[in-house]
């Protein structure tokens, strides 16, 4: 697949001098002021930081949902922050898997269909139809893997928060992404189901060597990552939970 970099270096995803500010009327609100970040292949990185420090903004820029004012983003050595729309769409679809705090499942679709959406987007009608059976089976396997085998036909409204987040994880995995970007995946869950979700992510990271970034407020969660960084004053700094 020529569109997706194969990642021959060990740094999977990196940000260099990323600057981003928002405009509130005439006032510039600086959020990121030269953030640098390197994410190694197979690494599980936790990002912490005060509320409003720009964690989500950084994650969006890394995952091509937003553009930096200046600075660069590289995926497996290839610069990806200034690509044409088509390439950005393709990378979002195949290279990145997003997980959000509020699950963001499509309410009209069942859990299984939600997991299929990335494949629907990737394939044209004919190609989808000809691979329908395989794609469905893969989606079912993913749901089984996240422990939702018995909830495939349920709508999001009929699932609990933890189940919704598991479905969202299955969806993020559906396109077999290079990097998983999770923005406070446990932020809306009670401690038990939050830990369940984190265990799942941790297992996936171990099993599949999946590279992932987890944004979190919770030091307990951050502790379980391979490495923790902190966002403060628009920059990324190494941080060890032991120091807290």
């Amino acid at each position, binding site marked *: 697949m020529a569109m997706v970099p194969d990642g021959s270096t060990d740094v999977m995803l990196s940000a260099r001098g990323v600057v981003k500010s928002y405009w509130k009327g005439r006032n510039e609100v600086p959020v990121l002021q030269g953030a640098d970040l390197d994410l190694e292949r197979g690494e599980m990185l936790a990002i912490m930081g005060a509320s409003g420090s720009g964690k989500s903004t950084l994650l969006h820029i890394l995952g091509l*949902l937003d553009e930096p004012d200046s600075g660069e983003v590289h995926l497996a050595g290839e610069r990806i922050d200034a690509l044409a729309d088509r390439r950005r769409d393709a990378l979002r679809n*195949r290279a990145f898997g997003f997980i959000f705090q509020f699950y*963001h499942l499509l309410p009209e679709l069942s859990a299984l269909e939600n997991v299929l*959406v990335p494949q629907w*987007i990737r394939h044209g009608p004919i190609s989808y139809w000809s691979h329908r059976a395989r794609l469905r089976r893969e989606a079912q396997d993913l749901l089984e893997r996240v422990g939702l085998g018995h909830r495939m036909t349920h709508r999001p409204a009929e699932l609990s928060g933890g189940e919704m987040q598991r479905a969202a994880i299955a969806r993020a995995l559906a396109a077999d992404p290079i990097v998983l970007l999770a923005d406070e995946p446990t932020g809306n869950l009670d401690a038990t189901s939050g830990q369940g979700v984190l265990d799942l992510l941790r297992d996936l990271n171990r099993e599949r060597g999946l590279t992932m970034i987890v944004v979190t407020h919770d030091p307990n969660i951050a502790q379980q990552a391979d490495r923790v960084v902190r966002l403060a004053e628009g920059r990324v700094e190494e941080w060890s939970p032991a120091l807290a």
Partner: protein
Amino acid sequence: MYKYLLCWRYLRTRYIALASVISVMLGVATMIVVNSVMAGFAEKMRDRLHGILADVVVESYTLNGFYEWQEVMARIQAVTGDEIVAMAPTMECPGIIDFRVNGEVWNRPVQIIGIQPKERAKTGDFAEFLIDQRGHQIPPSFDVPDELRPTTTASELLKDFPVDRQNPDDLLIEQELQQEMKDQSPDSGAILGYALATIHQKGMEDIFIAPPGTQVKLLFPRFGQTKAEASLLAATTIGYFKSGMSEYDSTHVYMPLEALQQARWLYDYKRGVGAVNTIQIKVKPGVDLAALSSRIQAALDRMKPRFYQVQTWEQKQGPLLGAVAVEQSILNILLFFIIAVAGFGILAIFSMIVVEKTRDIGILKSLGASTAGIRGIFLGYGLLLGAVGSGVGMAGGLLFVHYINEIEQVLSQITGRKVFDDSIYYFNRIPTIIEPMTVIWIVAGALLIAVLASIWPAQRASRLHPVKALRFD
């Protein structure tokens, strides 16, 4: 792929959007019903116009007409060959009819038409429109049946006269009385337009003011050396002409051709031929009437320039047919506005749905959906809604047209008065014609409007910034 699946899913779950297509549906149904009924009426009208007028009509510009009609007909025959089925010479002129109703003299303007009934019947549906008082069809003839002859001194005498068949004197007297009776009562029968002879009041049976046997006097211009003079002719009402076109039924009076020619002093007794001012021509089916009539016109112009006017029945009725066409197109424009209004409904509801779906749009974009893809979802959704609306509307409209007479009956029973008063239109069923092209145009128009109405919301949806969309709630 997701475009189709999602807009299909939205269609099945967003009932509010279906509300917006109800107006599309009603608009499409109404347009189909109105067009079918109007086409039906127009066709009926054309039928009738065509029944009264032959395919092609040759007229002289002057009312006095021409004597050499046999040459003219021969000429026409020569230039058209076997494309012509029949021809009938007639004499038409405006006049006044008067007759007595309850001892008072009533009069009205009329168009007096002298015809050879058998010939005229061959050139159109004329004979089918001739009826008696009870509405039964009568043969095309002007013979006055004896029972309709008015009583005169001679007829009274004849009734009481004891005829001895053995006595030649008696037979002679009887013969003379019969002759006198004929002289005293007008010899010619007249067929009056139905609306001329009756009074129509809504909801009541038509009242005959000129029942069969009524003596009518016709006043009309006759030939004069220096100027036109008035001439008078009496006739006995023997039947009625009911074509369903009130314009004709309220003015036409049919007379024997020769009687009219003689009364108008347009009869050459020496040669035994009278003048006519119109020749009705029936043409074989499938022949291009307009081309044929211009060929005849050219030939007759060579005979006598600026004297004859040749027109097809459609050209002759141009203004009336044109008026119907204008009426239909104006109605169509107005009705199309209904669908346009429905389009704005779709626009409003779609804009609402886009707002409601903002977060889902952000999600789809985060999963790799392209701008064009998001636009496609909403355009496809609009098309789908339009298709549902116009599909259901089309089915409803066609069903309505199919059962229109049953519906009319039910409505009449519920409201207690006739919705479709057949005595006004003279036909007992509402005529309808479904033209497939019209239906296709209406449905295509509705689809187009639905898509046009969804362009703007779709465009807005596709331009949403993914992060802003995701943060939206």
